[in-house]
């Protein structure tokens, strides 16, 4: 028993060493080296370049701006939809998290079709007012902030909503019975209780925004951000700059992760230990307010769905039929026929499916190994690892998730680009395996977290009961634990699979030409102005993701 766990621990350490520690260490080391000797020259050089400093400042500024805007949108929406009930509430609630499941590249493309200077909105205004030029250009700060707010506000909406649901309703009542006015209760009870949720949302938004790549690439205009700088440095072969900037980006992201983890561990605020009064949603009684809230629900729901609807529409547009008109003039199935029938266009589905499946299944197996080491199995019985060990393990597993895709791709490519004394002739770059490995590293934390959550919800008494009935360790696992945690683990695996399916940020850095994933095909169709085909790929991805999310949701509920 103990020997099995030890073997497991060794295996986990090996994977983490090769997958997380070594590549990141390799990047850090090479950022401090020049011609084989240790030096700070790289940092001195890149930090004296205006463009690099600008990229750092832009990335930070964009992320902070994104956090503020997302909070301004997400928090009021969460209050409105979590605390009140009115006609139309469900309509919005159903699509509120839609942007979260949209692959960033697909979202970017949809945004261009909708809001770009030759998109539906700009065209309709131009045609309506008979303007000479498009009324705006989708570029630079406003474009990036708008897109980021659209895609990342759900962090605030979802987490604030969850925070509000968790707050014991009797706390606010107690505060009022003690003489606190509404505003007093809001600032002294509600806000402190919500703080952890707000901080978690802010950090998630910050990290996601730091990692954002597709939008700065496609409509960032002159706003250079770190991810983009790293990409262009690599494209022009300036590895020193790419690697050094990667370290800077990684340090900022990891700092956010560490703060995030500290706050997530603060359980005191949750106060879930006591039985609380359930919070009922308040029905909005006043007719005007009801109408206003209902209208807001409908408007926001439309705003959320519009980019996706646009993508659907464009995917049926005949190539070349959409130039100056508000909407495409002719519709056809040809785009779909092409991407499925043409071997060169269709092979990307097979590529992405196989690479994502390999990564997701590996993550599933891996999550069982890790969670066995992480979770306390029975009451009183100490976990296999001490608290420090478990914390370190959790942190190492979260690192590739917290790091921007750009960083993971650069560090993996840097570490496994050429044979070395540690690896022998083990080279990943340029092989089929580089992307599945990167997908695995980036998305396995999702599976681990899903399984860990299921395991922790499991009542230890169940296994104890099985043991008292005479079941051996493997029988307890197969007949009690596995059936109960399986749905959660599978839902996590499915999530990792669909996210890998639409991955672009890391893929674009290291993909192999004869093994292109779907996202690369979308980008190249867009570059060739095959808008319909790019949209059709996006629609296929969205359909696959939606179906998978429905299945994952069903699985979660059967827990």
């Amino acid at each position, binding site marked *: 028993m103990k020997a099995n766990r030890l073997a497991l621990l060794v295996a986990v350490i090996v994977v983490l060493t090769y997958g997380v520690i070594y590549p990141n260490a390799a990047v850090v080391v090479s950022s401090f080296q020049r011609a084989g000797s240790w030096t700070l020259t790289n940092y001195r050089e890149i930090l004296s370049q205006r463009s690099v400093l600008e990229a750092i400042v832009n990335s930070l500024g964009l992320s902070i701006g994104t956090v503020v805007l997302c909070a301004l949108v997400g928090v009021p929406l969460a209050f409105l939809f979590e605390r009140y009930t009115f006609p139309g509430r469900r309509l919005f609630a159903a699509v509120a998290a839609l942007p979260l499941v949209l692959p960033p590249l697909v979202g970017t493309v949809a945004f261009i079709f909708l809001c770009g200077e030759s998109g539906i909105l700009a065209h309709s205004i131009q045609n309506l007012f008979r303007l000479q030029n498009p009324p705006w250009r989708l570029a630079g700060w406003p474009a990036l902030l708008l897109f980021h707010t659209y895609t990342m506000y759900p962090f605030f909406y979802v987490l604030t909503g969850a925070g509000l649901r968790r707050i014991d309703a*009797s706390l606010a009542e107690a*505060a009022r019975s*003690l*003489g*606190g006015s509404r505003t007093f209760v809001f600032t002294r009870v509600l806000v402190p209780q919500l703080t952890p949720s707000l901080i978690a949302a802010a950090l998630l938004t910050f990290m996601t925004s730091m990692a954002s790549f597709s939008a700065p690439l496609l409509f960032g205009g002159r706003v250079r951000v770190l991810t983009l700088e790293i990409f262009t440095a690599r494209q022009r072969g300036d590895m020193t700059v790419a690697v050094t900037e990667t370290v800077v980006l990684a340090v900022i992201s990891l700092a956010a992760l560490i703060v995030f983890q500290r706050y997530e561990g603060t359980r*005191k605020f949750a106060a879930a230990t006591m039985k609380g009064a359930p919070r009922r949603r308040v029905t909005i009684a006043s007719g005007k307010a009801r109408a206003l809230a209902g209208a807001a629900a409908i408007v926001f729901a439309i705003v959320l769905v519009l980019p996706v609807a646009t993508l659907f529409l464009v995917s049926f547009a005949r190539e070349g039929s959409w130039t100056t008109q508000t909407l495409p003039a002719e519709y056809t199935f040809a785009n779909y026929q092409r991407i499925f029938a043409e071997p060169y266009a269709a092979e990307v589905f097979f590529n992405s499916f196989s690479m994502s499946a390999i990564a997701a299944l590996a993550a599933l197996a891996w999550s069982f190994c890790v969670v066995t080491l992480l979770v306390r199995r029975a009451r009183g019985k100490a976990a296999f690892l001490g608290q420090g060990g478990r914390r370190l393990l959790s942190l190492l597993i979260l690192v590739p998730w917290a790091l921007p895709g750009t960083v993971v791709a650069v560090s993996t490519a840097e570490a496994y680009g050429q044979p070395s004394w540690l690896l022998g002739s083990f080279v990943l770059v340029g092989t089929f395996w580089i992307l599945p490995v990167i997908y695995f590293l980036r998305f396995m934390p999702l599976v681990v977290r899903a399984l860990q959550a299921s395991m922790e919800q499991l009542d230890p008494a169940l296994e104890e009961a099985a043991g008292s009935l005479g079941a051996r360790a493997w029988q307890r696992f197969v007949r009690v634990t596995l059936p109960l945690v399986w749905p959660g683990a599978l839902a996590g695996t499915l999530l990792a699979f669909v996210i890998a399916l639409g991955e672009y940020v890391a893929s674009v850095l290291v993909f192999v030409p004869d093994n292109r994933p779907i996202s690369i095909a979308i980008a190249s169709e867009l570059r060739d102005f095959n808008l319909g085909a790019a949209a059709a790929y996006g629609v296929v991805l969205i359909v696959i993701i939606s179906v998978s999310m429905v299945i994952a949701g069903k699985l979660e509920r059967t827990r």
Partner: protein
Amino acid sequence: MPLLSLQNISRHFGSTRAVAGVSLDVAQGEFFGLLGPSGCGKTTTLRMIAGLEQPDSGSISLHDKDITDLPPERRGFGMVFQNYALFPHLNVFENFAFGLSAHHAAKADISERVRSALELVQLPGYEKRAIDELSGGQQQRVAIARAIAIEPVLLLFDEPLSNLDVSLREETRSELRELVTRLGLTAVYVTHDQEEAFALCDRISVMVGGRLMQSGRPRELYEEPADIAVARFLGRNNLIRAVRLSSSKTSDGEFKTLEGGHTLHVPVTPDDLAPLNKPVVLAIRPEHVRLSLNHDGAPNALRGVVREIVFAGATSTVRVDAGGLLIEALLVQPDGLRINQECTLILRGDKLRLLREA
């Protein structure tokens, strides 16, 4: 003039009627209990008193002033919640000080009053403790002291002892009563535990199904339940279905039991004479049933067979089958009784009560 007065208040949740036309008065200095089974509307009534729920109809007044529409923070009632509702992000001191700073009390005044409140509930030196470092009993006392610290006009309790274990519950119960009396406070106390209500309250109203069934001193309620619902809820009762015999016109009503066909004599006042030939319910407490092994010529003596003897420490419950009528008797020492033994039950006429249907 009562301190608090509810006039005919009602509250619906959707189509369910939680509280239906409740009227009651609470006098200054009174410890008033609202007692009833779970879901009877007692907590909703309390929350309407606190201002946390609005009644659909009816009014609430304090010192004869209508407070129905007054928000909770302006009523000045302290409330102790079932789950205590202590603020988990604040320590003990800050929990106490919350109500005082909401009332804009001076800083020095606050720390002075917090110190005396902590002494009041025997937790001196606990100011800096986090809430989750306190035991359940200590949290309980902090919750009570927090409500008392604002010097409330009225203290409201929503089953405050139900999360404590039995021994702690009885201890806290007497402390609580002592504290309220010492400070001369008026309290409304909601509970489903009749023993708790009897021990604590000066006066009790029993609520069933959203209605106030009966109000009175604990002993009155226990000995003279007005109807079947109250009798069922307050302690154990033998409920005997019977019809009044037509031959009896005097105050000594003559009844024939539906089960067993026994004849029982019950003194009834002329104004609540039961209608003839319609089933009524007669109630008698198990402790008022006498049990004898001999034939007995006493009135209301029924022959029966011992079916079950349940030992419960100080007393034992004996279940006797009297020709199809099952009667429970509470005995201090059921010596010499055996299962299937023949015996005589004596139901004292003055302890038999005629109940109206709810």
